[in-house]
C-alpha cells in the first residue's frame, strides 16, 4: 500500500475547505448577499462530519468490512442512488442568498431583495416564476375553474381562461398532445444519452482499477459480473436521468403536476419540500446524538445512582405520549415566537428557527430509545476482559469510555440513525397536519397534504398536489427504509427491529 503516507482526512479536509471557501467567496463574486440560516450551517457541519467519518472508516479494515457488504447489495445500492439524488437536491436548496435589486438613479450602494432564494431556485427558474392564478390540472392549458369574461362583442361568457404559462407557447390547442409527446421523447433521448455517457465514464474509471481494457470493463458492467452491482446502479441512475430530463423539458412549457390554489407550480413545491424532509430526518438525530450517547454509556458504565438518575430521566420523557409532548413544546414555542416578533429579521429566519426548534423537540422525544439500547450494550461490554484489563491498569473512567466503550457501541448508533430517518420524514407530515409541525410558510410535504386534503371533495377533484407529495415522500422513505435494512443486516443482524 503506497497510500500509507496520505492521511485519511486529506480528501474530506480538502472538500470541506473548498466548500467553505465557496461559501464565503463566491457570493461576492456573483454580487449576491449570502444568507446563513441556522439549519444550513448545521447541514454543512453534518456533511463535513460525514465526510471525515467516511475517510476515517475507509482506512480501517474492520470498520470498512460491513460497508463493503452494504455496497454489494443490489437493493441497497439502488436505494442509495435515489437517496443521493434527494441529498444533492437538498444541499443545493441549502445555499441561501438575496439577489441585488436593479440600481435606481442616484442610489448609494446596492440594495438587496428581501426575497431569499437558493441555488436550487436558480435551476428551477421557470418552475418558480411560472405561477398561475389558481388551480390547473397537470399539463393543462386552461384554468380549472370557469371565469366570467367580457368578449370583444360586449357579451359576457363563462369560460376556462387560458393559463399564463401552461402551454402558452401553443396558439392551436389541438397541438397539445403532439407537443407533450415531442418534448417527452426529446427528454427521454437526452436522458438515455446522459446515461450512456455515465456508462462510458464508469467503464473508463473501472477499467483502470481492474487493469483491463475499456471494452472489457464495459461488457463486465453490462453482464453484471461485478462485485459492486454497477449494472443495477447504472439502470437506476439512468431511469432517474431520463425522468429528470423529461420533466425538465416538459416544465419549460407545462405544469407537470398542475398548480395549487394560489397558482404555484406543484412540482416546484414538491421539490422544495425535499430539503425540509431531509433537515427533519437528519438534524433531529444530530441534535439528540450527543445526549443519547453520553447518557446511555454513562448509565451502563457507572451504574448505581448515575444509572438511576438517567433511567428516571428517560422513563419520564418516554412516558409522555410523543405527539403530546411535541405538541406541548411546539405550542409553547409558538407563543414565544408570537410574543417576540422583534427577534427575527425576515420571515425566512423565523420559519427556519421554528424548523430547527421542531428538530430539537423531536430529538428530545426520540433520544430515549437509543439511550436505552446503549445502556444495555454498555452493561454487557463492561464485563468484557479488555475493559477489566484497562481498569486494572488504572486507565481513567472517561478514557475507557472514549477509547473502549464508545467505538464498540457505534454500530448501534449508526443503525438507529438510519432506521429513524424514514420515521422522522413521515412524522413531519403528520405533525404538520396536527398543526404542530413546520411553520405554515415553510414548503413541506406535510403542508402540501394539509392544504390539498380538503380539495378531494371538490368537483372536479384536485388530486395532483396529493399525488406529487405522495410520489416524492414515498420515493424518499422507501429508499431510506431499504438502505436502512441493508445497513442493519450488515452491522448487526441480531438487533431486533423496534415494535411498530
Amino acid at each position, binding site marked *: 500500500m503506497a497510500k500509507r503516507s496520505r492521511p485519511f482526512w486529506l480528501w474530506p479536509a480538502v472538500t470541506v475547505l473548498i466548500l467553505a471557501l465557496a461559501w464565503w467567496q463566491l457570493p461576492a463574486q456573483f454580487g449576491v448577499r449570502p444568507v446563513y440560516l441556522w439549519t444550513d450551517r448545521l447541514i454543512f457541519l453534518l456533511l463535513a462530519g460525514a465526510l471525515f467519518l467516511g475517510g476515517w472508516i475507509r482506512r480501517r479494515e474492520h470498520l470498512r468490512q460491513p460497508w463493503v457488504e452494504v455496497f454489494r447489495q443490489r437493493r441497497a445500492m439502488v436505494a442509495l442512488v435515489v437517496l443521493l439524488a434527494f441529498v444533492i437536491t437538498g444541499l443545493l436548496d441549502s445555499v441561501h442568498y438575496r439577489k441585488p435589486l436593479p440600481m435606481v438613479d442616484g442610489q448609494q450602494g446596492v440594495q438587496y431583495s428581501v426575497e431569499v432564494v437558493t441555488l436550487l431556485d436558480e435551476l428551477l427558474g421557470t418552475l418558480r416564476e411560472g405561477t398561475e392564478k389558481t388551480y390547473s390540472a397537470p399539463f393543462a392549458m386552461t384554468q380549472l375553474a370557469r371565469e366570467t369574461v367580457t368578449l370583444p362583442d360586449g357579451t359576457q361568457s363563462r369560460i376556462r381562461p387560458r393559463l399564463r404559462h401552461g402551454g402558452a407557447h401553443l396558439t392551436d390547442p389541438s397541438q397539445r398532445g403532439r407537443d407533450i409527446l415531442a418534448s417527452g421523447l426529446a427528454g427521454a433521448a437526452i436522458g438515455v444519452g446522459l446515461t450512456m455517457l455515465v456508462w462510458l465514464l464508469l467503464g473508463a474509471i473501472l477499467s483502470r482499477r481492474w487493469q483491463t481494457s475499456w471494452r472489457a470493463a464495459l461488457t463486465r458492467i453490462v453482464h453484471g459480473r461485478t462485485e459492486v452491482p454497477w449494472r443495477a446502479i447504472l439502470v437506476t441512475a439512468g431511469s432517474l436521468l431520463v425522468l429528470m430530463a423529461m420533466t425538465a423539458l416538459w416544465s419549460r412549457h407545462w405544469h407537470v403536476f398542475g398548480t395549487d390554489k394560489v397558482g404555484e407550480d406543484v412540482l416546484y413545491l414538491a421539490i422544495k419540500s425535499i430539503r425540509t424532509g431531509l433537515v427533519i430526518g437528519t438534524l433531529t438525530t444530530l441534535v439528540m446524538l450527543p445526549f443519547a450517547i453520553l447518557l446511555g454509556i454513562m448509565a451502563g458504565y457507572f451504574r448505581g445512582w448515575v444509572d438511576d438518575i438517567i433511567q428516571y430521566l428517560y422513563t419520564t420523557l418516554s412516558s409522555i405520549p410523543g405527539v403530546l409532548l411535541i405538541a406541548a413544546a411546539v405550542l409553547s414555542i409558538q407563543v414565544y415566537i408570537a410574543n417576540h416578533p422583534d427577534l427575527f429579521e425576515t420571515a425566512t429566519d423565523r420559519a427556519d428557527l421554528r424548523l430547527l426548534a421542531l428538530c430539537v423537540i423531536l430529538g428530545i422525544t426520540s433520544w430515549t430509545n437509543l439511550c436505552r439500547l446503549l445502556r444495555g450494550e454498555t452493561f454487557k461490554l463492561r464485563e468484557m476482559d479488555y475493559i477489566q484489563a484497562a481498569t486494572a491498569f488504572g486507565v481513567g473512567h472517561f478514557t475507557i469510555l472514549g477509547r473502549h466503550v464508545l467505538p464498540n457501541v457505534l454500530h448501534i448508533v449508526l443503525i438507529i440513525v438510519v432506521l429513524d430517518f424514514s420515521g422522522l420524514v*413521515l412524522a413531519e407530515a403528520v405533525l404538520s397536519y396536527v398543526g404542530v409541525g413546520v411553520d405554515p410558510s415553510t414548503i413541506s410535504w406535510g403542508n402540501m397534504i394539509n392544504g390539498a386534503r380538503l380539495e378531494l371533495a371538490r368537483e372536479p377533484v384536485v388530486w395532483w398536489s396529493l399525488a406529487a407529495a405522495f410520489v416524492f415522500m414515498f420515493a424518499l422513505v422507501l429508499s431510506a427504509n431499504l438502505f436502512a435494512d441493508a445497513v442493519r443486516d450488515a452491522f448487526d443482524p441480531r438487533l431486533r427491529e423496534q415494535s411498530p
Partner: protein
Amino acid sequence: MFAYIVRRVLYAIPILIGVNLLTFTLFFVVNSPDDMARMHLGVKRVTPEAIEKWKAERGYDKPLLYNERAEGLQRFTATIFFEKSVSLFAFRFGRADDGRDIAWDIRQRMWPSLAIAIPTFLLGILVNITFAMLLAFFRATYIDVWGVVLCVILMSISTLFYIIGGQYMVGKLLHLVPISGYDSGTNAFKFLVLPIVIGIISGIGAGTRWYRTIFLEEINKDYVRTARAKGLSELRVLFRHVLKNAMIPILTGAVVIIPLLFMGSLLLESFFGIPGLGSYTIDAIQAQDFAIVRAMVFLGSVLYIVGLVLTDISYTLVDPRVRLE
C-alpha cells in the same frame, strides 16, 4: 407478586411528578400566563385590563409557586402550580378555555375512541400474525422475500395517504359508507367500519415484519428442531410450538399499548369526524387550549405507566420462568 406491584406503583409516583414538573415548566415558566392571554386575545390590540380579566376567568391570576398574600397553608395551595398541576394527581382536570368541564368531556369521548381503537388493535394483531405466519411458513422462498419487500413498501406510505385514499375510494367513489360522522348505539357501525379497516391496513407493513422476525427467531431454536425430528408436520410445528412460544414477546409487546387505547387515534378520529379523545386532543392543540393539552399529557403518562406495570405482570403470566422479585 403483590409487593412487587405496590413497589412498581410507588416507583410510578416520581415519574408522574417529573411529568408534572415538565408540563408545568413548558406551560407556565417558558411562557407566562400573560403571554398566553396575549396570544388568545390577539397580540396587537390588547389592554392590560383584558389580560387581567382573561387570567381571572381561568384562574391564572395567582402567583406561580408561592402566594405571599395568603395565610398559612394557602400560601402554597392558592398558586397556579397547586391548582393547575398538583390537582392533576387527583384527576381534577379543571375547565377548558370555553368553560366546559374537561373530566366530563373525557368520560363522554372515551367510548367512541375505544369503539375504534379496540377492534383496530385486536383485528390488527390477528391480521399481522396471520401474514407473519404465512411468511414464516414460506421462509427463504420468493414469497417470503417479496412479502418482506411488500411490507417495506406498505411501511413507506404515510398514514395520511392511507386515510385520504381510503376515504376517497370507499366513501366518495363507491359510496359504500359515509365519509365522516358518528352516531350512537348500533348505528355507529357504519361510521366505524372504514376507520377500523384503514387503521388495520396502515399497520400491516410494520406489524407483519416485526412478527415475522419474532417467528423466525423462534423457528431457529432447538426445540423446534426436536419437534421436526419427531416427525411433526411443518404446519403443526408452526402452530403448536412456534406460535405458542412467540406469543410471549408478542403479548408483552402488545400489553403496553392496551391502556393507551383510551387516548384514541389522533389521525383516524379527526379525519373521520369521530368525537373521541383523539379528535379532542387535536382540536385542543389547534385551538391552543392549554388546559386540555395538559390534562391529556398527564392522562397519557399515567396510562403508559399502567401499561408498563401490566407488561411486567403479563410476563409472569405467560412465561412461568420469569419471577418478579
